[in-house]
């Protein structure tokens, strides 16, 4: 008994003591991530202060919140926006933008490019590389010489030279690492010559879509002797399934393969319980045609001809990446395609630099042989060469950045009055209640920015500290026109099929009063009539917005049923006349209940004639949502339903309504459904890349891999656009025009109608007016499909603390916003701010202050 008692007591004590001791021990050993004190005066690097080139008192701290902890701010592998927060402070590009001020020191609302990690703007040296690196005689704007800033150094004073840039790019494109951000240099407008070949030089073969290999149909590929492979995992859900011998089903299986795999989704003994690639092809092959929503599920196995491709250039074509060191402080970048000035500087507004000694020490090799680096994942593995350095990092908790005493900008005399902020403190606030917590934290004076919800606008709508910031996102309906899917959803009492009718989709569009919607659910936002909103800049030199161009306004007018008259005046559908384009444009509302009713009648007649609808059915549009509906979202859907009901005429459809479907089970399943076009309606937004409007139509609405439209786009290859190019009428599909705008035609062998060849120019070299014409034509064509119905252009509301000012009160554009950290100035030091809060708060809260000021 004594033994038993001892053992039991010891065991009980051990389990509690061990857990506690482990906890305490673990936290005590975590000395490297020492957290900062709550924001307040302190001097970074205090111990070696006397040796530092710059020393200043840390009196201006900007306090911010974040929702998800940064995981890696490695420039080669970062993923999320949160990851890029730290990266944005500890690095700086070759070139950057700053606000322009007039002689009185007031911002003019414009910006200018300045050199940072470079000492001069890039010089076109293409002619020096003719015959090498893919440069042909007569080419221009492909090879660029960049003189490096000789004052630049790491945060320990180690100088940065051309060797660092070469080493860093070799790591970025290392075929053994396959870094996520390598695609920044292997695709798009800033594709470095040979980068892609080098990156995949250890990859034996890849699966490519049939269309991308120059075949117009699957049958054509088969006729040419090609073997087609079907994606058994993603198309048919056979991941993890096995054959009779226990062999696992591979992802890609030849369509002629008759090996059967047990499909666990089907009951044993039922039809289809064992299925082969040949069976799937026989049943669904017609759905998987080139150009269809499902084309990505069928591929050709393309042998990689560039296995072993080297870094150094050789005349055999089996080596050469377009990044060359010409002296210790000069590099030359050779791009695959010509690039315009803006895009060159824009792409060089960040660098790929990593610190060699640290990067190498952070490398790890997984058991499968893939090499990765833990560089920039913690305080110890981070090196800085920007204005700030990371001084503390507690994962999933907080981090602090303090000024980098070795940054050249503090001593070079070119940054006077800039970067006044001495430190930045970021605190994690996450979870369901994060907004409420952030608001309380802000009101206690601990945060310097907080978002304001529409329900809070009644309190802070007139505050001088309220900021209304446009976003590049256009919220819109993404409507399904996938015939098979819609018809498969129909029941005796529910109809989904009518959604495939363009007239029906347009009726929905004209039923919605966008201005009423904005007032009710997004007060700061603007009604949207186009796919691109007022953030998109077509001419970065002048700041010209796409939406302000004549072509874009014309698109909005035509889409909304206006007719242009010979004298330049415009007439609405009901006959109202406007003298010119501007006055007509101002009158667009997008809401026309009479026309909506007419379209509903037209859709009804068409549906009945085609046998798509019977009078016992309610028209139901399932709105796909990955999670449970919020109260606001439910109210929004009700609002839309009310709008449809008001416009739906008697004697047509029994009813038209949106119903939420939330039963996807996981976010992944939701995305799968979206990608496959198996969703009636998605109400979401697409935006980003506001300085590069050219890639938006292709990237967001057409490219099957990167598109909100996903399975919803089945038309772009069948719709033709004819445009005048230097007096010549050029006709090509919407897909091809959008692809050309995306700079994709130079590589594309999709069809013979290669616009790069026909036009003789890439988008980078083309005339601006012509590019705007193409963009506008693509936008109009896409809008006319009525697959995308724009609802509003998104704006966000926020409160900014009284502690600091932005460089300008007027939002300039996405590139520079309000001026950013470079131009922030402070009204109070940290200690003065503490006093301010105590003097102006009521019970420790600044709520009253911000409501009344």
């Amino acid at each position, binding site marked *: *008994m004594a033994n*038993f*008692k001892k*053992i*039991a007591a010891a*065991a*009980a004590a051990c*389990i*509690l003591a061990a*857990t506690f001791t*482990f*906890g*305490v021990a673990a*936290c005590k050993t*975590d000395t490297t991530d020492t*957290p900062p004190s709550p924001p307040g005066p302190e001097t970074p690097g205090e111990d070696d202060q006397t040796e530092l080139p710059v020393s200043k008192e840390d009196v201006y701290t900007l306090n911010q919140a974040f929702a998800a*902890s940064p*995981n*890696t701010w490695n420039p080669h*592998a970062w*993923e999320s926006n949160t990851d890029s927060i730290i990266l944005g402070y500890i690095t700086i590009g070759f070139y950057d933008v700053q606000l322009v001020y007039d002689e009185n020191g007031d911002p003019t609302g414009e910006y200018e490019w300045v050199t940072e990690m470079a000492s001069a703007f890039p010089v076109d040296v293409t002619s020096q590389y003719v015959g090498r690196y893919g440069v042909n005689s007569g080419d221009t704007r492909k090879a660029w010489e960049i003189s490096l800033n000789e004052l630049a150094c790491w945060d320990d004073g180690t100088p940065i030279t051309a060797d660092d840039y070469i080493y860093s790019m070799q790591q970025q494109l290392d075929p053994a690492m*396959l870094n996520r951000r390598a*695609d920044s240099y292997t*695709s*798009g407008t800033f594709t470095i010559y040979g980068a*892609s070949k080098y*990156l*995949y030089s250890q990859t034996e073969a*890849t699966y490519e879509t049939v269309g991308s290999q120059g075949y117009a149909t699957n049958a054509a590929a088969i006729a040419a002797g090609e073997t087609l492979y079907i994606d058994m*995992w993603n198309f048919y*859900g056979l*991941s*993890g399934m096995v054959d009779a011998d226990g062999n696992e089903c*591979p*992802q890609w299986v030849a369509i002629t393969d008759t090996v059967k795999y047990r499909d666990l989704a089907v009951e044993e003994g039922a039809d289809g319980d064992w299925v082969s690639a040949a069976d799937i092809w026989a049943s669904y092959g017609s759905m998987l045609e080139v150009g269809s929503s499902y084309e990505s599920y069928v591929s050709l196995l393309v042998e990689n001809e560039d296995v072993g491709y080297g870094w150094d250039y050789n005349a055999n074509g089996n080596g050469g990446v377009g990044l060359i060191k010409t002296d210790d402080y000069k590099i030359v970048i050779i791009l695959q395609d010509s690039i315009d000035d803006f895009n060159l500087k824009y792409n060089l507004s960040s660098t790929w630099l990593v610190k060699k000694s640290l990067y190498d020490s952070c490398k790890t090799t*997984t058991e*499968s*042989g*893939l090499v*990765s680096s833990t560089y920039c*994942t913690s305080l110890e593995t981070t090196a800085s060469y920007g204005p700030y350095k990371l001084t503390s990092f507690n994962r999933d908790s907080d981090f602090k950045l303090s000024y980098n005493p070795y940054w050249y900008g503090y001593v070079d005399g070119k940054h006077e009055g800039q970067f006044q902020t001495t430190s930045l403190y970021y605190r*994690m606030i996450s*979870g*369901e*209640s994060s907004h*409420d*917590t952030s608001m*309380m934290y802000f*009101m*206690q004076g601990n945060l310097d920015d907080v978002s304001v919800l529409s329900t809070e606008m009644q309190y802070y709508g007139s505050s001088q500290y309220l900021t209304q910031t446009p976003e590049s996102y256009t919220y819109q309906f993404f409507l399904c026109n996938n015939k098979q899917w819609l018809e498969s959803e129909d029941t005796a009492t529910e109809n989904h099929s009518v959604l495939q009718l363009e007239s029906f989709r347009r009726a929905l569009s004209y039923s919605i009063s966008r201005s009423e919607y904005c007032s009710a659910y997004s007060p700061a936002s603007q009604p949207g009539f186009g796919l691109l909103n007022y953030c998109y800049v077509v001419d970065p030199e002048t700041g010209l917005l796409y939406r302000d161009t004549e072509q874009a306004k014309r698109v909005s007018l035509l889409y909304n049923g206006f007719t242009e008259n010979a004298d330049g005046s415009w007439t609405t559908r009901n006959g109202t006349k406007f003298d010119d384009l501007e006055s007509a444009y101002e009158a667009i509302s997008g809401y026309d209940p009479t026309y909506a009713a007419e379209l509903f009648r037209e859709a009804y007649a068409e549906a009945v004639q085609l046998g798509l609808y019977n009078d016992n059915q309610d028209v139901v549009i399932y709105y796909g949502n990955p999670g449970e509906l919020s109260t606001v979202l439910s109210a929004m859907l009700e609002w839309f339903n009310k709008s449809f009901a008001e416009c739906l005429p008697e004697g047509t459809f029994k009813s038209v309504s949106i119903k939420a479907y939330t039963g996807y089970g996981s*976010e*992944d399943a939701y*995305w799968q459904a979206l990608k496959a076009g198996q969703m009636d309606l998605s109400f979401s937004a697409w935006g980003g890349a506001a300085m590069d409007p050219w890639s938006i139509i292709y*990237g967001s609405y057409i*490219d099957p*891999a*990167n598109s909100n439209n996903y399975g919803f786009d089945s038309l772009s290859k069948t719709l033709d656009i004819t445009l005048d190019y230097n007096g010549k009428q050029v006709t090509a599909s919407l897909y091809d025009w959008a692809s050309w705008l995306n700079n994709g035609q130079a590589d594309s062998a999709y069809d013979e109608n290669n616009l790069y060849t026909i036009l003789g120019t890439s988008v980078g070299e083309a005339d601006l007016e012509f590019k705007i014409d193409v963009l506008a034509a693509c936008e109009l064509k896409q809008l006319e499909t009525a697959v995308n119905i724009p609802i509003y252009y998104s704006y966000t509301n926020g409160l900014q603390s009284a502690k600091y000012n932005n460089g300008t009160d007027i939002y300039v554009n996405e590139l520079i916003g309000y001026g950013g950290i470079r131009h922030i100035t402070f009204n109070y030091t940290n200690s003065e701010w503490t006093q301010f809060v105590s003097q102006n708060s009521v*019970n*420790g*809260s600044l709520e009253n202050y911000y409501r009344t000021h």
Partner: protein
Amino acid sequence: MLKYVIKRLLLAVLTLFIILSLCFIFIKMLPLPVVNGSTEMVELIEARREAMGYYKPILEQFFLFWGRIFTSFDWGYGEQIYQMQSVTDIIAGKLPATIAVNLYSLILSIPIGLLLGIYAAVKKNKWQDHTISTLVMVFVSVPSFVYAFLIQYLLCYRLGWFPLLASTDTNYLAPEVVWSLMPAIFSLAFGSIAGFTRYTRAELSEVLTSEYMLLARAKGLTRRQATIRHALRNAMVVIFPMILGEFISILSGSLIIESIFSIPGIGSLYVTSITSLDYNFFMAISAFYTAVGLAAGIVIDLSYGLIDPRIRMGVK
């Protein structure tokens, strides 16, 4: 007895192996997360997955996994979350916060819960008992995050007694850190206190009416002496295992509380690892919780004998 303990430990290890093997096979059977991004990005990710061995047969991956564990106790690197960072480092870094909050909560809950339970049992069917029982029902029924919101708003924001968010200092023994954790501790403790009170009251009420209690009083013990020496000790046979069980349950149940007070604990990591399909994190955390559960089971069984000498284990 030693033989019994060894046998239980070996069985626990075997159970752990079986559970983890099943977990491994099941999660590997799930399809990989959808890659969203440009065509080039999708190609790159696919190539990475291929290179990382994602497309090897599950059996091969299974043996590689156990090989790593047995030879070097290596749980691998983050693949979908905390990319290429050591799984054990990340978990070890986040565990102290969770353990501290839960342990403090338990330290607060046990004495209060037991005392209230004893008081309610002694005052059974009087107004004190009814009041305590009503409050117990309220606190058992309402989820802890509701208290968390109330505490954060009232005590932290309106009254300013506590900081709105937990301290980021990792010295969980420092008074100011403990003070900053108090709102979270209270939020977790209310439910536990109610649970302990309810069980203690129920068990003690039953014991207090037993015949040996009458005998104890008859032989001259005071009510207090009889309650503490005889009644409480017998009631603890049921209550003590509950305390250990409670510790395990709150260890895994503090997800929302950690999030509300920005405590960098392990709570959300398990869910994130599942939703992100990060195999290595999922396996490591599953192993942790399973091991804690199995160890606690053994300790609970052993504790019966410690508390009640009449109980013998492993003796035929």
